[in-house]
């Protein structure tokens, strides 16, 4: 309840619309702007532009046309670098594979291909409440997928944290430096670098140096943000 004497505050959900199709981009912006609880803060035609705008404008929700090139990669990256921003996928085919692929990429909601404007609004508002609007059939599929993952050990156990030195070495590995070059850069013996690399591979439960960098990027939203942005532009 708002205390008497204070103005009531309407919480608007800020939305960034991403679609390569101008008709959808502009049309949705106009239609959704009429919804009292939504504030359209931008539109983007490509994922690189969308990532830049998302990082700068920090919308509550990104409404992502699933047909945009690299939409899955975009969703995954945004989830890593700005996990607080919710992604709602637009126009998904109502197939388990399609929805699960986007779910694994980190979407918070979706609108089926035959959805209406009301469905878009409902999906955005549900995502903001931490809820998912989906068919009972899809809910069952998600539960089965989770059970299967648990059975085959698909989800890694919590890892031991890397030391600051190990993290530093992963960053250098990610820059393409060899063990010898890392040793020179840090002023330590090559054997010491090898020990650190061995330990960090074990902690991250990976076998290759490149995998270690990739794993750290997926665990730390702030790790190599600029690189993530660059990779979409490239």
């Amino acid at each position: 309840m708002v205390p008497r004497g204070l103005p009531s505050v309407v919480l608007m959900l800020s939305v960034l619309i991403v679609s390569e199709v101008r008709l959808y981009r502009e049309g949705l912006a106009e239609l959704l702007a009429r919804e009292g609880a939504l504030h359209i803060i931008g539109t983007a035609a490509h994922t690189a532009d969308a990532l830049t705008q998302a990082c700068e404008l920090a919308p509550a929700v990104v409404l992502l046309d699933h047909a945009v090139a690299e939409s899955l990669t975009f969703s995954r990256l945004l989830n890593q670098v700005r996990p607080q921003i919710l992604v709602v996928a637009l126009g998904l085919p109502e197939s388990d594979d399609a929805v699960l692929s986007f779910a694994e990429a980190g979407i918070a909601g979706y609108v089926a291909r035959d959805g209406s404007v009301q469905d878009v609004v409902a999906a955005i508002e549900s995502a903001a409440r931490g809820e998912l609007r989906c068919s009972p059939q899809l809910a069952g599929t998600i539960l089965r997928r989770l059970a299967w993952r648990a059975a085959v050990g698909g989800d890694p156990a919590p890892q031991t944290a890397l030391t600051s030195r190990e993290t530093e070495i992963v960053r250098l590995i990610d820059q393409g430096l060899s063990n010898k070059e890392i040793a020179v850069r840090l002023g330590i013996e090559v054997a010491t670098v090898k020990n650190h690399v061995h330990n960090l591979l074990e902690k991250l439960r990976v076998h290759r140096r490149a995998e270690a960098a990739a794993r750290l990027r997926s665990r730390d939203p702030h790790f190599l943000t600029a690189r993530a942005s660059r990779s979409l532009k490239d």
Partner: protein
Amino acid sequence: MDRLRILIVVGSPLLRDILVRGLSREPRLEVEALPTSPSDEALASALLRHEPDAILLGDEAALESRDALRLLYDHPQTVIITLEDDGKTAAVRRLQPEVSFLTDVSIQALVGSILQTCESIE
């Protein structure tokens, strides 16, 4: 001048809402929309009922060229605009026979095309 009657036949509710809202902003257009993607018979019936100056067909409702030509012969005064599946391009057909293509389709482009094509017939 009478307003031009536009009939929208689009399967996607979202696209239909966008088109109806966007085209209705133009005061020279009178916009009607069929609620779902109709059968050939239902479409023919709707054309007789509404007598549109232009019909806008979208995604799964879009006609093959041959079907569009038949429709044009049955309704020679009607302009047929078909939105392609990618949502970015459209074909504008009239009984000249003549086809022009729009790229990077926007509401403004659709309004301009409808007005230009229909008014040139009158």
